[in-house]
């Protein structure tokens, strides 16, 4: 019974101390961050860049341009993942031409050994 009472005391005191110490560390870190000059991660589209519309076109909002850029890059990435012909870098028939699936298959064939896990 003595041991159990000791255990309860150690647990309560121990957890309290760990929380207390780390809470104090949290306070210090927060204070340190407040004293720092505020420095944010750079925005994706830096302010001040002027986007001009072509002659005769309506003005395009910078956010719309950013959205279009993201959409285009995602579309390109998707096509690349699908190994679509539009994304071919090398002419069909050349040794360098292969979709990712074909390249992976060739790689497996050319390995003289294979790990058990694979």
């Amino acid at each position, binding site marked *: 019974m003595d*041991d*159990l009472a*000791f*255990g*309860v005391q*150690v*647990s309560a*005191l*121990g*957890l309290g*101390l*760990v*929380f207390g*110490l*780390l*809470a*104090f*560390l*949290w306070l*210090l*870190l*927060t204070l*340190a*961050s407040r004293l*720092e000059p505020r*420095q*944010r*991660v750079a925005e994706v589209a830096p302010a001040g860049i002027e986007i001009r519309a072509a002659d005769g076109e309506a003005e395009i909002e910078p956010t719309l341009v950013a959205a279009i850029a993201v959409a285009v890059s995602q579309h390109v990435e998707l096509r690349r993942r699908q190994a679509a012909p539009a994304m071919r870098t090398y002419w069909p028939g050349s040794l360098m031409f292969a979709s990712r699936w074909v390249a992976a298959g060739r790689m497996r064939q050319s390995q003289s050994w294979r790990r*058990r*896990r694979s």
Partner: protein
Amino acid sequence: MSPGAIDQLLAGITGLTWQSIVMFAVAGVLLYLAIARDYEPLLLVPIASGAILANLPLSPVVGEDGLLSILYAAGVENELFPVLIFIGIGAMTDFGPLLENPRLVLLGAAGQFGIFGVLLVALLLGFTRAESASIGVIGAIDGPTSIYVSGQLAPHLLGPITVAAYSYMALVPVILPPIMRALTSQSERRIRMQPAGRVVSRRTRILFPIGTTLLVGTLVPFATPLVGSLMLGNLLRESQVVQRLTGAASNELANVVTLFLGLAIGSTMIGTSFLAASTLAILALGILAFGLDAAAGIVFAKLLNRASGGTFNPLIGAAGISAFPMAARVVQRVAQTEDFENFPLMHAMGANAAGQVASTVAGGVLLALVAGAGG
């Protein structure tokens, strides 16, 4: 040929015991986990090798002037190896995600609940105070801390405690996900957290290890070797002026000491003492400590989620343990199975880094409370 010579020749075979054969099988399991499953191979391979060497019949590597005994006396008995390893860990750890979001430090504290919960259970099972504290410290999920604390409080349990600590660290990807899924709802797992978006200056990065050492070292002197060496390694890294030392600490020093530490720990796994009911109890209590850590972290993160108006993903709480960076990676993986475009990784890394600091603090606090009370 004299019968004595024949006996001498057959001494190896006649000296083989069932305990040593079982220990070869245990070492085989550890080697399988390390080599085939890639679970903590850096430590499990030397530990298993040390266990095989120590359990060979009439093994000359243990005992007086034996290689493994010398390693044990040189670095484990006097706590040198775990402390040196902490210098390497500090040199490899980026505390940036924690410094960007300091409130995550509390998750590290919640992740130490298992230590104290299991201490109580071990006392109920009849272990002594010092043994219970040593078993509880498996809940730090931190090998060097477990070795440091149990080496001082219960050196006779060092073998099973170290094996449990490192095995469970290796099994983080297996043990954590079911607990995370059981304690969180799908909508909670899908919560997307905003990036902290703050740049931490070099000055803060340098002041953090110095301030933490001063704070913890002053308030809990027992934790000074652990926190001090961890923060020394980190100061080397963040100062950016001693890259040779940083490289040496995180590569050569960490690798050499890991090898020696693993071999020395393996040498304590001698069948006659390791194969006891208490070993099984320690392994069971170790996994309980791990589960309690993860559960307490998640519950605490749920409180933070409630306090923040539903913007805090409770999965992050499971990363408040010391297994760095494995726990954070598991959080990311579980979150991504629910929502492929959810990236809580950096927040989880912050909680994981907090877990590292918290485990060393908890180890020191436990030592102070138990050794100080004459445990």
